[in-house]
């Protein structure tokens, strides 16, 4: 109950910020919410099921490009978005069916290689994808029914709606019996197998759900912000959700959102002083992994807030 109230409270706060936040922060929050959805999905695989992937950019890019290219081809926003979500899930399902035959370090490298192959594929088909340069969606392609997503307020509310659905579904998932089995697989794979759970299947489902989230974030990015480019398929976009999750707390529902929020503002504040984006990301990763491997919410949970999901 407390947990549900907390999450609804966060969503209500974000809704209030739609009316209160100054334009600059308003625009930034919309981006944070979309990337937080990416992080929420990453956390399903990493935080709850224990699958450390270094290739989630592939699923994000699958959503981004499926939506973007279909929009180019004249599809309207609704079906294009849906196709983007499904593309993320489908790519995760197929690559996971192969990659999940490995574990640990091998899994990290295999996912990294798959994502790298995806990135190179996008470059290889530059005539279609416009490569690193990318392309912009037409304004017509960014009309979701009567809603014009090129305008600030509808865009913010659309990002919030996506984030709300993603957050509440994840809350329901981690409190469900399936969520508990995911944690069981993370905690002790062999024990879970000998309790009769199909460990491979549990992992594959978790990775596919994670891919659906990443695909949704990518698809939303294309339509909300109107730009599609190969940069989103690069290794940086595999590291970002990992960073958000580590910062906010792996295995906590709100963690990746908190991580994305902090990281955005940290980079924003320091970029006034210097162009030190790479340093901020690198130093955050180092500090987290050495001093606070549980992240912010994970540490809070360990110190008494046991109800935190």
């Amino acid at each position, binding site marked *: 109950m407390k947990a549900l109230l907390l999450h609804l409270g966060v969503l209500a706060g974000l809704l209030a910020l739609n009316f209160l936040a100054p334009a600059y922060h308003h625009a930034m929050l919309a981006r944070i919410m979309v990337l937080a959805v990416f992080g929420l999905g990453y956390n399903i695989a990493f935080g709850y099921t224990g699958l450390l992937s270094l290739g989630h950019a592939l699923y994000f890019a699958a959503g981004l490009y499926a939506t973007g290219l279909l929009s180019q081809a004249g599809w309207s926003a609704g079906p294009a978005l849906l196709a983007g979500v499904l593309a993320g899930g489908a790519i995760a399902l197929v690559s996971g069916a192969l990659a999940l035959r490995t574990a640990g370090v091998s899994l*990290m490298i295999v996912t990294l290689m798959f994502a790298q192959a995806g990135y190179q594929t996008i470059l290889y088909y530059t005539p279609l994808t416009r490569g690193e340069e990318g392309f912009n969606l037409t304004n017509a392609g960014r009309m979701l029914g009567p809603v014009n997503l090129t305008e600030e307020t509808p865009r913010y509310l659309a990002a919030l709606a996506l984030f709300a659905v993603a957050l509440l579904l994840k809350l329901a998932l981690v409190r469900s019996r399936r969520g508990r089995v995911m944690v069981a697989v993370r905690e002790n794979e062999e024990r879970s197998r000998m309790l009769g759970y199909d460990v491979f299947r549990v992992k594959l489902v978790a990775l596919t759900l994670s891919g659906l989230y990443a695909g949704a974030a990518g698809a939303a990015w294309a339509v909300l912000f109107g730009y599609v480019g190969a940069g989103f398929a690069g290794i940086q976009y595999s590291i970002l959700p990992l960073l958000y999750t580590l910062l906010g707390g792996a295995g906590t529902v709100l963690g990746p959102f908190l991580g994305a929020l902090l990281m955005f503002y940290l980079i924003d504040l320091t970029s006034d002083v210097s162009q030190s984006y790479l340093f901020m990301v690198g130093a955050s990763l180092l500090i987290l992994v*050495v001093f606070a491997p549980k992240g912010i919410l994970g540490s809070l949970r360990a110190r008494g807030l046991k109800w935190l999901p």
Partner: protein
Amino acid sequence: MGFWPIFLLALMEGLVSAAVLAITAAGLSLVFGVMRVVNVAHGAFFMLGAVGAWFVTTYVPGPPALVFLAAMILAPLCVAALAGLADIAVLKRLNYSPDATIVATIGLLYILEQGALSFFGPSARPVPAPFSFRIQLPWFGYSGYKLAVVVAAVVLLAVLWLMINRTKAGLVMRATQSDPEIARAFGINTDKVYAGVFAFGAGLAALAGVLVVPIQQAYYLMGEGPLLMSFIVVIIGGLGSLRGTLVAALFIGLSDGVISMFFSPTLTEILATLLVAFVLIFRPQGLFGRGAA
């Protein structure tokens, strides 16, 4: 030119990249073999070697060949010291846990790239070769420096081989690799071995960076390609097997040279990365590996 001269040129280019790749990958392979650490910052050490060479050749006066020789010694030493420090300050505190060290070396990679960007700048800068001798073949002229790189790599790898198999340091390293517990029981300070191996591996990458910079130019993101290629080589050669790594470096370097002469390099890279993924999935001991060398 007909087909065969082009093919010969492709082979020679492939041999040069195989030479540089072999040195870089040997460092990565050593670190993984002994420490079980997947060092994502390896490409950054490579880049620092090249950037270091630029600083030395730009600011140290003297005859070019001598200055370049100084760069070949100074840059790897500085990079090795930096890596040793990183091992003690970060990796050791993580108890070399595989997952945590990967995340940490990613962090390290970003910090080093930022350092290069801040102090060296965003543009690529050339470093002149220590000598400009050209070999004239019937069909084309070829850079003498590139051939010197191949010779240097062969000598270097032979020395490395002897060091690992014939010296006390090599013995200590192999003992730590096969069982750290037992090595400790025999009085080996494994913390020192780990720091030393990590520094040594980084130094090898830096040396490769120095050797390649007259061919390529120094650039703060130049380490990403070699990192990926080293990963490919180390995995296809069999994780932790130095022999396999060297065979794979030769194989990948040559075929990369030949294939990218006739096909798109992007396509080559897609196929290579997919090959690595499938090797890890279906043949985790590598294509050439038969356990640790």
